[in-house]
Structures are given as structure tokens and as C-alpha cells.
């Protein structure tokens, strides 16, 4: 009988090691905000849609780079205090913040700084038990070799998407939401900071269009607002939303048109959106985004 039990335990151990991907440093600290509780105002499907629709951690950085803006360390969140982030809320939110920063670093091939960020991300990912999706060893090697930067970019963004997907699949949508909100806040912080120093109509447009996603993120955060940290997050997002109320997005109709360009199928969208945002509104959004982001990363 003992032999059978031992046999079974060995299999369970193998299963557990497969699931953790060989990760030994994962902690198992759970707090109240780690578990979705109570009735949700937004259905699971709608929540999934909203979380899924938030842009990837590299998209804002890609826009900034495409405008010819120089890289600057000052837009990055500091990683020194990562060990002081103890709650699941802090870990998940800052995971998103560092994820966006990693996207920015990768976009500019700043591999020397990447190690600090992948270490911080690994630490936080382990803290909320998704570290198995973050292949720290490979990422570190790719960053140290400064070669195969496309793989570094792919693997970091892919790992991030996998962590998010895993959290959503395992009924931990609150943490997934925090991660993507962290990405969103840091992305908005990056474009607003750049817009402040090097104004460009595309940046103003991109900042204005965030109205679309902000309204949806607020719906999600409301679900968890019984939690103290979530209620602070809601307050901060509402501060931003107030400023966005007078930002208008108008649609000019048009039909999509398929074309073939150099053997590539291209669909050209002729329906257009236009963001109506004044300089004053933009200035207020820039200032408030900085305050909100700095408050939230230190929450």
C-alpha cells in the first residue's frame, strides 16, 4: 500500500514540476486581492474582452520610436524597490508597469538595462505564481549577448501575453486586469511625457484615443472596488476620466478597400476617426497622468 502511495506521490511531484517549469523561487503568498470574490458587475466574457483588447506592452514604444524620438531612461519606472512590493495588487500592477518599460527598452535595443527589468519582472511574476511563463534564463542570455534582438522582443512580449492569458484562464482576472492596467498606465505615461517634450499631432491623437479604453478599464476596476487598493486605483482612473469627458472622437464613414502591394494583401480603411482635443485638455491629461502613475507605482 505504501508503495502505491509513493508511486502516486512521485507522479504528482513530476506533474507539479512540469507546471512550474523548473521554477524554484515562486512564492505562495496569497492575500485577499488574489481571489475574485462576490458578484461581478461586468460579465466574465465582457471582462475578458476588455482585458484582451488592451494594447501590447510595446505598441506605445513602437509609436514613440517611429516618430524619431530619442530614448530616455527618465521615462522608466525605477526597479530598486521591487522587493518592497508585497501585496498581489502591487506585484501585478507593477508587473504591467515593468512590462511596458521592458517593451520600451527592447524597442530601442537597450539591452544593458534590460537585465534589471527582466529580474524585476521575474521577481514579481513569481510573486503572483506566473513566473513559469517568464523564461528568465533565455531572456537574460539574449540580452547579454545583444544578439538576436528580435527573439528577445518576441519572447518578452510573448511571455507577458502568456502570463495574462493564464491569469484569465484561472479565474484570477483581477490580477490580469491589474497587469494590463499597469501596461496601459505606463504606456500612457510614456506618450504623455514624450508629448510634453516633443509635441506631435500623432501623440496628441494617441493620447486622446485612450478615452475609448479608459472607460472600459474603469468598468473592470469597479468590479473589485471593495478592495482598498482597487478603490484607490478607481479614484485615480476616474480623475483621468474626468479630463477625458470633453475629448471628442468623431467618425468619418468610408468603405474598406483591398489592394495588392508588392504581392502583399493590404486592406485600406477609408473610415476615419478624428480626435478633438485642445492644447489645454492635453496639458491637463499630461500632468494628471504623471501624478496618477507616480501615485500608483508607489501604492
Amino acid at each position: 500500500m505504501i508503495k502505491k502511495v509513493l508511486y502516486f506521490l512521485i507522479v504528482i511531484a513530476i506533474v507539479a514540476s512540469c507546471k512550474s517549469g523548473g521554477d524554484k523561487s515562486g512564492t505562495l503568498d496569497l492575500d485577499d486581492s488574489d481571489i475574485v470574490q462576490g458578484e461581478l458587475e461586468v460579465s466574465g466574457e465582457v471582462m475578458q474582452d476588455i482585458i484582451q483588447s488592451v494594447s501590447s506592452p510595446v505598441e506605445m514604444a513602437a509609436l514613440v520610436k517611429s516618430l524619431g524620438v530619442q530614448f530616455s531612461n527618465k521615462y522608466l519606472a525605477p526597479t530598486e524597490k521591487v522587493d518592497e512590493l508585497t501585496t498581489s495588487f502591487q506585484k501585478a500592477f507593477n508587473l504591467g508597469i515593468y512590462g511596458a518599460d521592458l517593451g520600451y527598452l527592447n524597442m530601442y535595443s537597450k539591452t544593458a538595462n534590460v537585465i534589471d527589468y527582466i529580474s524585476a519582472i521575474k521577481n514579481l511574476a513569481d510573486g503572483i505564481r506566473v513566473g513559469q511563463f517568464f523564461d528568465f534564463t533565455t531572456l537574460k542570455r539574449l540580452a547579454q549577448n545583444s544578439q538576436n534582438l528580435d527573439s528577445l522582443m518576441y519572447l518578452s512580449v510573448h511571455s507577458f501575453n502568456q502570463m495574462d492569458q493564464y491569469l484569465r484562464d484561472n479565474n484570477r482576472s483581477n490580477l490580469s486586469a491589474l497587469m494590463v492596467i499597469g501596461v496601459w498606465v505606463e504606456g500612457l505615461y510614456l506618450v504623455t511625457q514624450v508629448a510634453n517634450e516633443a509635441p506631435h499631432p500623432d501623440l496628441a491623437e494617441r493620447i486622446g484615443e485612450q478615452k475609448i479604453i479608459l472607460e472600459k478599464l474603469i468598468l473592470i476596476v469597479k468590479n473589485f472596488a471593495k478592495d482598498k487598493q482597487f478603490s484607490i486605483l478607481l479614484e485615480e482612473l476616474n480623475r483621468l476620466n474626468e479630463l477625458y469627458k470633453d475629448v471628442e472622437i468623431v467618425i468619418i464613414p468610408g468603405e474598406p478597400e483591398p489592394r495588392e502591394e508588392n504581392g502583399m494583401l493590404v486592406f485600406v480603411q477609408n473610415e476615419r476617426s478624428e480626435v478633438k482635443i485642445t492644447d489645454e485638455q492635453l496639458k491637463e491629461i499630461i500632468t494628471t497622468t504623471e501624478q496618477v502613475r507616480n501615485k500608483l507605482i508607489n501604492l
Partner: protein
Amino acid sequence: MNMKKFKLFPIFILLSIISLNIRAQDISQVAAQCAAAADAVYLKDYVVNLDASTPGGAPNQARFALMLSKNTKYRFSVCPAPNSEGEPVLKLYDMNVLVGSTYIEATGKDFHMFDFNCQKSGIYHVFISFKDGKAGEAVGVLSFVKRL
């Protein structure tokens, strides 16, 4: 007999897990290959695994929401997993308007990818299905090509 079954059970579990891990690695490799392009930056992937549709019924499809931004050229690619029975088709919708597809019904032409010149910021939906309602496994990839 029961004792024999008991002994085989953990082996069965172990083999299932190994097979699941191999499958996960396979699909990750497909995603990496599908995302590989010198002129585009990988943003997201969408993994689908669909059963065959019931005869006469609507084809099974997977739906994903995504935010796209104005003045941006995006690339949508779709790649089947090595053992996929069906040929995947990726369609992009703005509300209920089809704004992009890897399969052009009018010509019957199939493309592995298409670029989308986005001029309207908003939430879009990607639908992935398999031709003729077959079962299949595939990865859709969204990439950033350039600012327009």
C-alpha cells in the same frame, strides 16, 4: 486486474502531461514562426483549437477583441499547427463590418497574412475559423508594421 489498472493510471497521467507539454511547445513554436518578420514587431498572438462544426451548422470560430490605433499599419498572420486538419482563416471586423481577411471569397484566394492600414482608433474583433467547418489548431499573430 484492478491492481494492474491502478499501476497504469499514473503512467497514463504522466503521458498525458508530457503530450500536453509537447503540444504547448509546438504551438509556441508555430506562434514564433508565424510572428517572424524582419519588417514587423510582434504584438500579440491568438491560439485557437476548434472542434469540427456540426453538419449543417454554423462553423465554429474563436473571437478576440483588440484595440487598434489610427495611422498605423498592422499585420495579421495566421498559421496552422503541424497537425491541424483544417485550413485557418482569420477575419478582422470593425463592429459588424468585415475590414480584412486572409481568404478572399470572391477570388477563392488564400493568403497567410494581410496588412491593415488602420485609420480609425477603436475596438476591433479578430475571428479565426477553419475552412469547411473542419477541426483545427492555429495561431493568429498581430504585429506592428509602421506608422502611416
